[in-house]
C-alpha cells in the first residue's frame, strides 16, 4: 500500500520493466495467447504497421497531386491507392488502434482480470489480422480494391467492375465485420458484468464509458453494412439483382445501408480518442474531469443521434426538400453534445496545474483540431451550402480534421500516455516533442489548404487536375505537409521501438493518474490485480494518495450496498509481481484454436474468389474444406476447458 506521490520519470520503481517469473515468452506465447493485454499489444503493433502502409499510400497520393497533371502513378493505380488509403485507415488502423486500447485498458480500468470471453477476444484479433492481410495483399498485384472506401453501387457491380478488385474489398470487409462484432459482444459483456466491486456505471473511467458506447454503435451499425455487402456479394457471385441497373435497382439502397453504418462509424472512430483525451487531460491538469456526468450523457447523445443523421452524406442525391431538412436539423443537433465536450475539456484544464508532456500536447491538439473539424461539420450540415462542398476537397479537409486531428491525435496521446503502463518504460519525451510538432504542423499544412482547394472547385478522388485551375498552391502545400508528417511518423516509429529497451523505467503509477490501471505494476502482471479492489470513487488512486482533496465529494466514498468477492479488498496500490499460481488465481489456458478458427474462416471466404476465376470446383472444394476445418477448430475450442 504505497502512498508515495507520483514519481517523476526516471525514478526506479520496485519491479518496473521486468516480467515476473512464469511469464511466457517466445512466438508461441503470442500465437496462443488469450491474455487481453497481449492481444491489445498485438492489435497495437498490427494497426501501427497498417498505419505505415496507409501512410505510404497517402504519400504517393500526395506526390501525384503535388503538381497539375501529375504523372507519378496511373489513374488505375491512383484509384486503388485512394480506395485502400480510406479502407486501411478506417478499418485497419483507427478501429484496431481503438481496439488495442479497448483490449488493454477496459479490464484494467474496471478492475477485472480479463475480458469476459478471452478466447473470443483472441479470435477477434486473428480475424482482423488475416482479414487485413487479405485486403492489403492484392495491392502488390495491382488488383487492390478500386471502388472507393464507400463502394457505391452500381460502380461496384460486375457490370462495371469485373475484376477481382472489388471482390477483395467486399469479402475483406465482411471478414473485418466479424472481427469487430465478436469483439463488441465481448466488451459489452465485460463492461456490464466484470466491473470490480463498487465500480458502478457512473464511476467507470471515462475511456471505458466512451468504449462502452462505441461497442453499442458497433453492434447496431455493422449489421447494416453487413447486409449491404451481402447483397453486393450475392450480386457478384450468385447473380441476384439488388444493384442491377437493368432490373430497376435503386442505387440509393446501397447508400442508405452504407451510411446507416457509415455515420455511426464516424463516432466509432472518434469516441475512443475522446475517451483517451478525457483520461489524459485530468491527469496532467491534476484535476478531475469537469462535468463527468455531462461527458457521459453527451457521449450517449452523440451515439444516439449518430443513427439519425446518415443521409447528410447524401444531400446531393435528390432526396427531396423534406428529407434534406430533417437530416440537416438532426445533424445540427449533434453539434450540441459535441460542443459541450469541448467546453468541458477546457474547463477541466481551467484552474489546473498543466504539465505539457507529449501525451498532454496530443490531447490538447485533439481539442484544438477537432474543434476545427466540428465547425466545418456544422458548415456542411446546411444542404444548400453542402451542395457546393460535398465531394470536394473541403470535405477531405473536414474529415481529416476529425479523424486525424481528432482520432489519430487522441490515439497518439494515448500511446505516449499508456506506453509506460504497457512496457514499464517511458517513451522519449524529447523525440516525442519532435514527433508532436512535426505531426501538428504537418497536419495543418496538409489539411487546412484543402478547405480552400475545395471551396475553389477541386473535386475529390481525381487522380489529376489541369493547369491553371487555381489549385496548384494549395496542393503543393498539402504535399509538403504530408512530407512533414512522414518525418514525424518516422520519429514516432523510432521512439516506439527504441524506448522499449532504453526508455526511462516507469513505476506503476507512471504519471500520477487516478484510475485503477495505475494502481498495479507496469507492465501489469498477467493476472492484473492480485486482489480485486473495492472501488469507492471515480479516481480511486487519487483518493488513496490525496484523501484530503477528495473528501466530501459526491461521487466518492463507500456505499453500503457494495457486493464483493472473496478476492476483493479495499482499494490499494500493488507494486509487486507474483506468480498467478502462487496467488491461487486461475488463468485461462493459452490456446491456438482461436487462431486456426479465424484462419479457416478467412480461407473459407477467400474461396469465393475462385468463382470469378471460373474455377467453380476449386471454389467449392476450398469453401467446403475450410468450413469443415472451421467447424472442427470451433468444436475443439468450445469443448476444451477455459482454465
Amino acid at each position: 500500500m504505497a502512498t508515495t506521490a507520483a514519481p517523476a520519470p526516471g525514478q526506479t520503481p520496485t519491479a518496473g520493466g521486468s516480467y515476473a517469473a512464469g511469464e511466457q515468452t517466445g512466438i508461441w506465447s503470442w500465437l496462443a495467447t488469450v491474455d487481453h493485454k497481449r492481444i491489445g499489444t498485438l492489435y497495437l503493433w498490427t494497426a501501427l504497421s497498417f498505419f505505415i502502409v496507409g501512410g505510404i499510400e497517402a504519400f504517393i497520393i500526395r506526390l501525384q497531386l503535388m503538381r497539375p497533371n501529375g504523372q507519378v502513378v496511373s489513374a488505375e493505380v491512383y484509384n486503388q491507392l485512394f480506395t485502400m488509403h480510406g479502407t486501411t485507415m478506417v478499418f485497419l488502423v483507427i478501429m484496431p488502434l481503438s481496439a488495442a486500447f479497448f483490449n488493454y485498458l477496459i479490464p484494467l480500468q474496471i478492475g477485472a482480470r480479463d475480458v469476459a470471453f478471452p478466447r473470443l477476444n483472441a479470435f477477434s484479433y486473428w480475424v482482423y489480422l488475416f482479414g487485413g492481410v487479405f485486403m492489403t495483399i492484392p495491392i502488390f498485384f495491382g488488383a487492390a480494391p478500386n471502388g472507393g472506401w464507400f463502394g457505391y453501387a452500381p460502380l461496384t457491380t460486375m457490370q462495371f467492375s469485373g475484376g477481382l478488385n472489388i471482390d477483395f474489398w467486399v469479402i475483406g470487409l465482411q471478414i473485418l465485420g466479424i472481427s469487430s462484432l465478436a469483439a463488441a459482444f465481448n466488451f459489452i459483456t465485460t463492461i456490464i458484468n466484470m466491473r470490480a466491486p463498487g465500480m458502478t456505471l457512473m464511476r467507470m473511467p471515462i475511456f471505458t464509458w466512451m468504449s462502452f458506447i462505441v461497442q453499442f454503435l458497433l453492434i447496431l451499425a455493422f449489421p447494416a453494412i453487413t447486409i449491404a455487402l451481402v447483397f453486393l456479394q450475392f450480386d457478384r457471385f450468385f447473380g441476384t439483382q439488388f444493384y442491377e441497373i437493368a432490373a430497376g435497382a435503386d442505387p440509393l439502397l446501397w447508400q442508405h445501408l452504407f451510411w446507416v453504418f457509415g455515420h455511426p462509424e464516424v463516432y466509432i472512430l472518434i469516441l475512443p480518442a475522446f475517451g483517451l483525451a478525457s483520461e489524459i487531460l485530468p491527469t496532467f491538469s491534476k484535476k478531475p474531469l469537469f462535468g463527468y456526468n455531462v461527458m457521459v450523457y453527451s457521449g450517449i447523445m452523440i451515439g444516439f443521434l449518430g443513427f439519425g443523421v446518415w443521409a447528410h452524406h447524401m444531400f446531393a442525391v435528390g432526396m427531396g426538400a423534406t428529407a434534406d431538412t430533417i437530416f440537416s436539423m438532426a445533424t445540427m443537433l449533434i453539434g450540441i453534445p459535441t460542443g459541450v465536450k469541448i467546453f468541458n475539456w477546457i474547463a477541466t484544464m481551467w484552474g489546473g496545474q498543466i504539465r505539457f508532456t507529449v501525451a498532454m500536447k496530443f490531447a490538447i491538439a485533439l481539442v484544438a483540431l477537432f474543434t476545427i473539424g466540428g465547425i466545418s461539420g456544422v458548415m456542411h450540415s446546411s444542404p444548400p451550402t453542402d451542395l457546393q462542398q460535398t465531394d470536394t476537397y473541403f470535405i477531405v479537409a473536414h474529415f481529416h480534421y476529425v479523424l486525424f486531428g481528432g482520432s489519430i491525435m487522441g490515439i497518439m496521446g494515448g500511446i505516449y500516455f499508456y506506453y509506460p503502463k504497457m512496457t514499464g518504460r517511458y517513451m522519449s519525451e524529447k523525440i516525442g516533442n519532435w514527433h508532436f510538432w512535426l505531426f501538428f504542423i504537418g497536419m495543418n499544412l496538409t489539411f487546412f489548404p484543402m478547405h480552400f482547394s475545395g471551396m475553389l472547385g477541386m473535386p475529390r478522388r481525381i487522380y489529376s487536375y489541369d493547369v491553371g485551375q487555381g489549385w496548384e498552391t494549395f496542393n503543393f502545400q498539402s504535399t509538403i505537409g504530408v512530407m512533414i508528417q512522414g518525418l514525424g511518423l518516422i520519429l514516432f516509429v523510432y521512439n516506439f521501438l527504441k524506448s522499449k529497451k532504453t526508455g526511462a523505467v516507469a513505476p506503476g503509477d507512471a504519471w500520477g493518474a487516478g484510475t485503477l490501471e495505475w494502481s498495479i505494476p507496469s507492465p501489469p502482471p498477467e493476472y492484473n490485480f492480485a486482489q480485486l479492489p473495492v472501488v469507492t470513487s471515480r479516481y480511486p488512486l487519487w483518493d488513496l494518495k490525496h484523501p484530503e482533496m477528495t473528501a466530501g465529494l459526491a461521487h466518492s466514498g463507500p456505499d453500503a450496498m457494495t457486493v464483493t468477492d472473496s478476492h476483493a479488498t479495499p482499494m490499494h496500490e500493488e507494486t509487486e509481481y507474483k506468480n498467478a499460481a502462487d496467488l491461487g488465481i486461475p488463468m485461462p489456458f493459452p490456446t491456438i484454436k482461436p487462431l486456426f478458427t479465424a484462419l479457416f474462416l478467412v480461407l473459407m471466404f477467400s474461396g469465393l474468389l475462385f468463382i470469378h476465376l471460373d474455377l467453380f470446383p476449386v471454389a467449392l472444394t476450398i469453401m467446403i474444406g475450410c468450413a469443415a476445418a472451421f467447424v472442427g477448430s470451433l468444436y475443439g475450442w468450445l469443448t476444451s476447458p477455459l482454465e
Partner: protein
Amino acid sequence: MATAVATAGHDSHAEGHGEHVHYTSTGLENRKIAVWAFIGSECMLFASLISTYLIYKGRSRVGPWPHEWGCKTSAAVAKTRELLQGCSPADVMKPILDIPVTSQSTFVLLMSSLAMVLALAAVETKGTPLPAGAGWWDRCLASSKFWLMATAVMGATFLGYQSYEFTSFVHEGLTIKTNLFGSSFFTLTGFHGAHVTAGVLWLLTLFAIDVKRGLKGKTDVLLVDICALYWHFVDVVWIAIFTLIYLIQ
C-alpha cells in the same frame, strides 16, 4: 475505504458442477449478456433485410409478383385475374405468395416457442420429485428431452415448409435471379431459414447432451436458457416477416 469485505460471496454462485464461478457485477452469467447483445445486433440485421424488401416492393420490372397477377410475355400487372388483360392463359403468372400454406408453417413455428418454454421449465425443475399420482402428462412435462426434441422437430417442420415453398416458387418461375422481388424475398427468408437451421442444430446438440449426461443444474439451465432466447427471437422475427411480407399487400 471501510467497505465490508464479504467473504461469503461464493456460496450463491457455486452451484452447478462445483466449478469456480467468477464474480459478476450483475449476478448474471456473461454468456447471457452476450446473447442479448447478439440479439440486439441481429435485430438490425433483419431490420436491414426487411427494409430492403419493402423498399424494393413494386420496383420489379418483370414478374412473378408477390400479390399481383402478371404476364410472362408483357409487363402487364393487375390486382386480380379478371383485371389482367391481353394475356393468354398460358402466360398468366399468379400471385406467388401462398398465405394459407405459410400460415400453417407460421403456426408450427409459434408452437415450437411454446415447446421451448416447456423445455426450459423442464430443465429448471429437473431433480424436483414428481408429485404423487403424477400422470403421463406430468411425466411428459418434466421431460426436457421430449420438449427439446419437439422444438427441434417443429423447427425442422418449418424448414420443410420453407423448402416446399422455395421449390414451388422456382417451379412458378421465381428464382433469386429473376427480379428484385425474388432477390430480396429469397435473401430475407433464406437468412431467416439459416437462423432456424442454426437453432435446430443447437437444439439437437442440447438434446444430445441431455441424452448423454442429462441437462441439470444452474450451468445447464443457462445453456438451455440462451438457446431459448435465441429461438424466441427467431420466432419473433418470423412474425414480423410474415406480417410485413405475406399479410400486408
